[in-house]
Structures are given as C-alpha cells and as structure tokens.
C-alpha cells in the first residue's frame, strides 16, 4: 500500500516531516484545579488535574512526596468503530501507567508530601497519536493547576513507511503495521523521559526516526510555551495589571 505517493505527499496531504495542526485551550473544566484540551489534527483529548489534595486512601500515602495518580479513558464514540468497554481494558491501563510515570518524573513531588495529585485524561476523538496528545494535555493542565514541575513534558510520535521517516502518524498510517516510535522529552533540560516503539527498525534508521520525533516534541514545546504565555497575559489583563 502506498502511504507516501511518488511526489512525497502523505494520505492526508502532509509532507513527511510535517506535523498536524495543533490547537490547545486552557481552563475548560471550571471545577478542576487545572484543565486543558489538546488537539493534534483530528485527535482531541481533554485533561483535568485535581490536586494537590488530601490523600483519599491512607494506606497509599507517601510521607516524603506527593502521590500521583492517572486515569486514561476513551469513550465508545471516539474511534471509528464503536468500542465495547470504555474503562479498564488493558490498553487503557497501560497508557494510564505510562502517563503517570512520565508526569511523575517531572513534577516536584517532594514539595508536596502526604498529598495526592489526580490527572484524568479523556479522549474525545482518536486519530493516531493519542498517547502524545494525552501527555501534552496533561502538561498544560498541570501548568494551569500551578503544580510545580521541573520542566514541561512534550511528546510526539514518528514512524517509517515506504522507506520514509514520517512525523506525527495518523490512525491510518499507524494501522499500517509499520514502526511507531513515541518520544517524550523535557525540552529545556533536553532529556528523554518516555521512549516506546513497536514493530522493528534497523538501528541506524531508528536513530533518525527518534531524532525526528524529538524535533516534533520541540515544536510542540514551542507551541505550548506560546499558549501558556498568552494565558498568563489574559490573567494579568483580568487582574488589571
């Protein structure tokens, strides 16, 4: 099957090194301490952060740091075919774990001992790259909640089809069965905090694809930075500064 046609255009009209359109909004869920909606093309994800607050389950309380919990859910209508079980299936559990570990690494948990931070991520529309969109949305929601972090975490995926490295795979390209590399980085500190891959890749091409995904992450970081700056200006304006 042809995923990149001879002129170098992909199925949705993008070039191989082109990312999908990004759009983010902060503060959409009024009752949450922090919330954000993040869109990468047709993939749309909403994240809400509740915390830091008192630990609900005393047995899980940590005396020297905050407890970070995460739940990822996809409703029935978010994918092309209607799903049977929205919560508790294995893929959701795995992605919840991945997001939790990624965010836990960047939150300064030692500043909030004996407390709990809940991150809830809800996929509204899935078109490939949901993992990355969730991490980006969670970062924005945590920033909106004012939770201290080492750095923003941004994430992007990349693949390799028809001998071409492709940035930001859509569902159509992802389901081709080729390699799918998801990278999460701390942009200012220039460190990788998440790296996942499936299928197989020769090592030299692997380096290229990871490099491409990292560039994608940096582009997302720039966009998130802009969104946060704009939001802060709005807050200042409303305070009359």
């Amino acid at each position: 099957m042809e995923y990149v046609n001879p002129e170098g255009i992909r199925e949705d009209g993008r070039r191989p090194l082109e990312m999908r359109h990004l759009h983010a909004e902060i503060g959409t869920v009024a009752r949450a301490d922090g919330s954000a909606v993040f869109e990468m093309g047709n993939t749309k994800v909403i994240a809400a952060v509740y915390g830091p607050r008192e630990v609900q389950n005393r047995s899980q309380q940590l005396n020297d740091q905050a407890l970070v919990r995460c739940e990822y859910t996809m409703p029935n209508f978010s994918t092309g075919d209607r799903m049977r079980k929205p919560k508790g299936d294995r893929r959701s559990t795995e992605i919840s774990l991945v997001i939790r570990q990624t965010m836990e690494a960047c939150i300064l948990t030692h500043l909030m001992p004996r407390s709990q931070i809940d991150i809830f991520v809800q996929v509204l529309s899935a078109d490939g790259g949901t993992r990355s969109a969730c991490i980006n949305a969670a970062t924005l929601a945590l920033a909106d909640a004012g939770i201290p972090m080492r750095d923003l975490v941004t994430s992007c995926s990349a693949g390799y089809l028809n001998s071409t490295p492709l940035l930001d795979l859509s569902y159509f390209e992802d389901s081709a069965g080729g390699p799918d590399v998801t990278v999460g980085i701390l942009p200012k500190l220039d460190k990788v905090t998440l790296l996942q891959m499936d299928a197989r890749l020769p090592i030299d091409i692997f380096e290229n694809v990871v490099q491409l995904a990292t560039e994608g992450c940096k582009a997302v970081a720039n966009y998130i930075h802009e969104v946060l700056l704009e939001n802060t200006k709005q807050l200042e304006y409303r305070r009359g500064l």
Partner: protein
Amino acid sequence: MVGLSAGEKHFIQGGIAQDLRADGRKRLTYRPIYVETGVIPQADGSAKVKMGATEVIASVKLDLARPNPSQPGKGKVSLFVSCSATAGPMFEGRGSEELSTELSVALQRCLLGGKSGAGAAFDPSCLSIVDGKLCWDAYIDGLVVSADGNLLDALGAAIKAALTNTRVPVANVPAGASLDEDPDVDLSSQETTRIDTSGVPVIVTLTKVGRHYIVDATSEEESQMSSAVSVSINKERRICGLTKRGGAGLDPSIILDMISVASHVSEQLMNKLDSEIAAAEADEQDI
C-alpha cells in the same frame, strides 16, 4: 465537591425564597447556554452543550444492521450516558456507574419511547434502508465532561443538537442482490439525509428547595434540594416523560403545579435551543 457551611446553606435557601439566587438569577432563569455541533469528527452527528460550568458532549453513530423482526420498517436506537473522570475524582474508576445508569435510564424513558416504538423522539423509520432486511442502528452516547448541576437538561439538549447534526448516509443496495447474506451496500455516494428532530422534546428539571422550585440548579443548589422533578416536553406542549428524584415526598397538587411551571418554562428553553442549534449548524457549515 467542597462541603457547605451552615451559613452558606442558609444563604442559598434564603436567596431562593426571595427569587434572587447566589449567582443573581431568578428562580426560573436558565444559565447562558452554548451549543457547538460537529465536535467529534468520527461520529455521524455530535454536539457539545455548556450551561454555566456544566459541559456535556453527545454523539450519534450509525452502523448497518438487521432490523428487529417485530419492527421491520424501523432502525434500532440505543442510548447510553457515561460520566468522565474529568468532571471530578468521584467519577474515577467505577464511581460513575450509579449516576450514569440513572441518567441513561431517565433519558431513555424521555427520548426512546415505549417497547412498541410509540412516543419516540424521532421516527426510527427514517433509519430503515430495506424493509425487514437492512437498517441503520443509531447509537447515541452522552459524556459528561464537567458537572455543575442540571446534567439531565444539558444531556437532553446535547442529544437534540447531535440528532439535528446527524447526517444519515444514503445507502444504495444493488437491485436483485441477495439480502440473506451480507449484501454489497454502496455507501460511496456523498449524499446524506437528515433526521427530523422537530418532535424531540426538551427536558426541564425543577428542583424543590424549601417551598420554591428553581430551574437549572447548580450542584451547590442541588445539594440543598428536597426533591426534583424532571419533565420532558415537546413542541406541542405534551409530556413525553417524567422522573422524580429525591427522598422527600411530594403532595400530588405540588407535582401538578411543577408540571405546569415546567411546561411554561419549556417553551422559552425550546426556542432558545432551536435558535442556538440553528446558529451552531450555520457556523459549522461556514467552516
């Protein structure tokens, strides 16, 4: 949700008694309603409705299926609501099951009609493709994204908007094709038909606090309620469904009074919703 102090409770109840609620509204005034359609690209129809801080999303998906043998000329419609954990930590894991079931059943009662299909919000025969052999199954899903009271009204409005936004693909079945196995249905034509939603009712929930009823309660006001009655009313001012919640008993004359108040309020709500939905659809087409 943060608990309320005795002073705050007194303030809420007193305000309602004086027709001046905590956010400045009168007893029978709705919060500003925002409707956006086409929010879920993969769905055949979708809408997002915001009433104050309450935000819900409804989506309609259509699948090819065989119709029920007892109703060969109609498609099947099913409706489920779930509460996202983003609305609050109490909805995490299985915490949302009770509320989701309660909302699903109330909406099914108001919108899907009886077992014979009578009294449904819209005519399911528009979903039929070939009588007795092929039809569209409509799956209506509701998702509560942010909860600040009055979920039932918001979901009813979102489902009405999502149904109006739904485009049913025109399916061409080749003549003479054998329909006992899976036929080759031609969905390539880009034509679509719409569902007639003029008969879809709106749901008005009246919450009784003290001796007065309010419309569109926030979750703080709902915590002070003694009981609530949700009435679903259509354009012809006919009642399509009725649900009473809350432990306190109600005198029958009060219930009749609440129904007539709801009927009066429903007209404004219906007009507001219709104009918001039309505006949202027009916006979506411009894009």
